[in-house]
């Protein structure tokens, strides 16, 4: 019976994906994308990847959807610009893609005799980190360098987005409030939901050490709540020249890096944790990272500065 359910959700996902590609209206396509992300997190739960399900629900549908939606609303006038390629080109592209899909399906059908896995290793060394969630163990202990560099990538992307603003607006604030015309209900919502969201974000970050969750999921919830507040006009987006914002942006990666270098002194090397304090250090890093991720993701979604800075 579980298989029947899986067939149902798989066919729904494929149908929604195809619909998203074919939809005529870009706004509708983005809405379908959000729906797709919400359903995809059910698929991740079916694959026993609860950590990923949380991330997909938060980032894959929520914040990406909001970003694409505001862009689609702004580009409404350019809708219909450009034409689909001619029918033969579509057929050729379609058969190429079908070929690639068939190849991938073949790979799925012919798995290795012994499925490659690092799970036993990950579990065997987990006690040294003091964590109970193996995914957090991979993210913050075994492959901590990847996670650190990912934070740097986020900051670089934010720099890229900021530098796309016009010269006049440099140092100003993103114009997010203009996207939703504020009304009293939205304001009420933006006052009621964030407290709940912030509690949930703190819980996510805290519980990540032993259960599914962590800094990414917690940070994304923070970002979403801040975006809601800015969209409703309850608080304005900060100017990008604000020193406070910039400190928040670098706090997480800087602390991570500092702990990494501390590893030379108190442990085996770069990004190594002393066994006794491993969990405390990791939780400390996660808290700082959750704040930084929240601010970074929200500003990435808010886009380049558009309001000219007030002197």
């Amino acid at each position: 019976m579980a298989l029947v359910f899986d067939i149902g959700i798989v066919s729904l996902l494929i149908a929604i994906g195809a619909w998203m590609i074919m939809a005529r209206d870009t706004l509708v396509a983005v809405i379908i994308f959000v729906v797709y992300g919400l359903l995809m997190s059910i698929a991740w739960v079916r694959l026993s990847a609860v950590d990923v399900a949380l991330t997909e629900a938060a980032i894959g549908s929520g914040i990406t959807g909001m970003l694409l939606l505001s862009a689609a609303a702004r580009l409404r006038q350019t809708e219909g610009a450009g034409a689909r390629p001619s029918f033969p080109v579509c057929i050729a592209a379609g058969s190429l893609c079908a070929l690639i899909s068939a190849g991938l399906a073949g790979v799925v059908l012919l798995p290795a005799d012994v499925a490659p896995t690092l799970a036993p290793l990950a579990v065997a060394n987990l006690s040294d980190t003091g964590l109970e969630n193996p995914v957090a163990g991979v993210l913050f202990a075994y492959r901590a360098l990847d996670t650190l560099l990912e934070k740097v990538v986020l900051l670089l992307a934010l720099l890229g987005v900021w530098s796309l603003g016009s010269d006049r607006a440099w140092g100003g604030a993103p114009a997010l409030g203009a996207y939703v015309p504020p009304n009293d209900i939205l304001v009420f919502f933006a006052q009621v939901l964030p407290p709940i969201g912030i509690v949930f974000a703190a819980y996510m970050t805290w519980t990540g050490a032993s259960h599914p969750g962590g800094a990414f999921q917690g940070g994304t919830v923070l970002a979403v709540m801040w975006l809601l507040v800015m969209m409703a006009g309850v608080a304005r987006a900060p100017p990008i020249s604000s020193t406070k914002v910039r400190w928040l942006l670098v706090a997480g990666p800087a602390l991570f890096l500092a702990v990494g270098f501390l590893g030379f002194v108190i442990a085996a090397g770069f990004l190594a944790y002393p066994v006794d304090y491993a969990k405390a250090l990791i939780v400390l890093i996660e808290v700082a990272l959750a704040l930084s991720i929240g601010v970074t993701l929200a500003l990435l979604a808010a886009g380049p500065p558009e309001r000219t800075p007030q002197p």
Partner: protein
Amino acid sequence: MQHSEWSMMMSSFLLVSAILVLASIAIGLVRILYSRQAADCMMAAQLVGTGGIAVLLLVAVATETAPTGDVALMLALLAAFASVAFVGGMRGTGSKAAEGADK
């Protein structure tokens, strides 16, 4: 013996329920997104949020996977946010498009 029989039956029952809810989400989605009215599209996140949480909880209990209360909470929060974004996106700049679609 009797206990396992009960739990087998219960798990099948919960899965059938999940499939039914999933099917009703799918039909609702087709109805909403094929509509000519912009307001219908804004309901999509609400529909999939509520229904998706029900499906998720039913399946998680039926297959005894890890507790998924957190995922359900996350879906509830994010579906609410997505609905607000939909209303803004369809209405913020698309007023003439929305009016055009209303006719």
